[in-house]
């Protein structure tokens, strides 16, 4: 059994880079379309909600609604791009394209592949998150230089959601199951995690649940950074995101080992 675990864990600290580079090469070929696609959705939300709703709701937590929303959209786009990269693209590489099967015949282990995929998904999250930050900054809705603190948080958020999605992917027999994860987990998280409105407006039972969601931790780190305010319980939020990264990593490794190396 110890042997089995060795196959599911990364063999060393750098093998994963080969997987990351494979994905980077594939992405480079379609980069323009990928970037536009990544940006369009959260920017539409930001402007539609920010300007549309902003007129009605007025300032939120002492900031204009669009500035409040910007942090939420950065977190949400990190969440969705890391998740989608994992459940659609990485699942395809594992399932139909058989790329993982080819890699398992080399010096890489399953753990190296998972780590490489997580790092790649976190990279995509970083690209999506920073793109929105840049637009929000150009429009003057973010505070500098404290917004720079948001960058590592976006990466960590990407890792956490990629890792969670890896568990979902490991369990899913086909693409058809991912819609449940999207509608039953991600969409409610957008609202319960405080991305679009302050959670203090929710009934307290929802607030209690919301506090534990990974997106809430990401938002609580990102919003002060983007608004130029001092963060609260920074260590706790970072710790929680790390837990959301590490535990699902081990769980997905165990599940994928059973699935791919039966």
């Amino acid at each position, binding site marked *: 059994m110890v042997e089995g675990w060795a196959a599911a864990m990364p063999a060393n600290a750098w093998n994963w880079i080969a997987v990351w580079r494979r994905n980077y090469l594939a992405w480079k070929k379609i980069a323009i379309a990928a970037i536009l696609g990544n940006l369009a959705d959260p920017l539409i939300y930001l402007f539609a909600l920010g300007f549309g709703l902003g007129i009605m709701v007025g300032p939120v937590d002492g900031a204009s609604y669009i500035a409040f929303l910007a942090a939420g959209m950065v977190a949400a786009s990190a969440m969705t791009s890391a998740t989608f990269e994992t459940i659609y693209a990485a699942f395809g590489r594992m399932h139909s*394209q058989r790329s993982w099967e*080819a890699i398992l*015949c080399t*010096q890489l282990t399953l753990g190296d592949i998972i780590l490489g995929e997580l790092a790649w998904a976190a990279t995509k999250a970083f690209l999506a998150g920073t793109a929105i930050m840049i637009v929000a900054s150009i429009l003057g809705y973010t505070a500098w230089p404290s917004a720079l603190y948001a960058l590592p948080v976006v990466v960590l958020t990407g890792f956490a959601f990629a890792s969670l999605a890896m568990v979902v992917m490991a369990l899913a027999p086909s693409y058809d199951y991912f819609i449940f994860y999207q509608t039953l987990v991600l969409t409610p998280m957008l609202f319960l995690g405080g991305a679009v409105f302050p959670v203090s407006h929710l009934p307290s039972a929802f607030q209690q649940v919301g506090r534990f969601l990974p997106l809430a931790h990401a938002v609580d780190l990102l919003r002060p950074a983007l608004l130029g305010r001092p963060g609260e319980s920074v260590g706790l939020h970072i710790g929680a995101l790390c837990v959301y990264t590490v535990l699902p990593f081990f769980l997905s490794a165990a599940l994928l080992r059973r699935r791919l190396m039966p």
Partner: protein
Amino acid sequence: MSNIAIDLTGVSKSYDDKVVVDGLSFTVAAGECFGLLGPNGAGKSTITRMLLGMAPPDAGKITVLGMPVPARARLARGRIGVVPQFDNLEHAFTVRENLLVFGRYFGMSRSEIEAAIPTLLEFARLESKADARVNTLSGGMKRRLTLARALINDPQLLVLDEPTTGLDPHARHLIWERLRLLLARGKTIILTTHFMEEAERLCDRLCVLDGGRIIAEGRPHALIEEQIGCPVLEIYGGNPRELRALINPYAERIEVSGETVFCYATDPEQVRVQLRGRADLRVLQRPPNLEDVFLRLTGRDMEN
């Protein structure tokens, strides 16, 4: 380095209570080409996956290139090249990119890989296709690329799972020629196939599997001699049942596969006499081959 490349002792594997590999033992010497034959589901691919540490055995001991597998499978894989049963090339990448990306999985640097690529392309006869995308290649080219990719780490051992399935005769002959070249260079090959001609041409030794067990093992010609040992008449047309009754007294053995009657007879002339004047039949006489061995050993229920 010992001269044993692969050693399996009492290896078993079950999936959902179904025994797929059943107490299997065999040895492959370095520099040898060893064939695994057997009907669909016999366990050939499962064995190749076990050699790579991709499927842990339930029981038994596996040693590959002197390393225990799966315990040190990763190390062993560094000196193994693999052609899998199902194509897993990167279809959106070019030929060159496929080799580059794959070389990195072995920890090779870009310059090491680039140095190896021209030789590999030449070997696979893909020089003119270096910058073509994989999804524009023919089936034979894809298979040759997979073979070139398997050689990127300069392996000592090649594990080939049905390397020529789905290829036309030209493409197949080209692969065979390439494989013989590799054998001449001292590589060890373990190969699964459904083509008896392939096994006969390439393999020094082979085993026929059924239900995860070895039912015959040896050199191709020794196996043919031992299992058949007489000329074969293939008879098409007519009713197999009626034909069987007619020629049974003059044949060592009769095998029916689909609508063909295979008649094994030390004196085929006597059988031909029985069939003389039957315009509905086509009779072909030939020396025995590995296909006959395969049919004999695995064809127990071919009749119904």
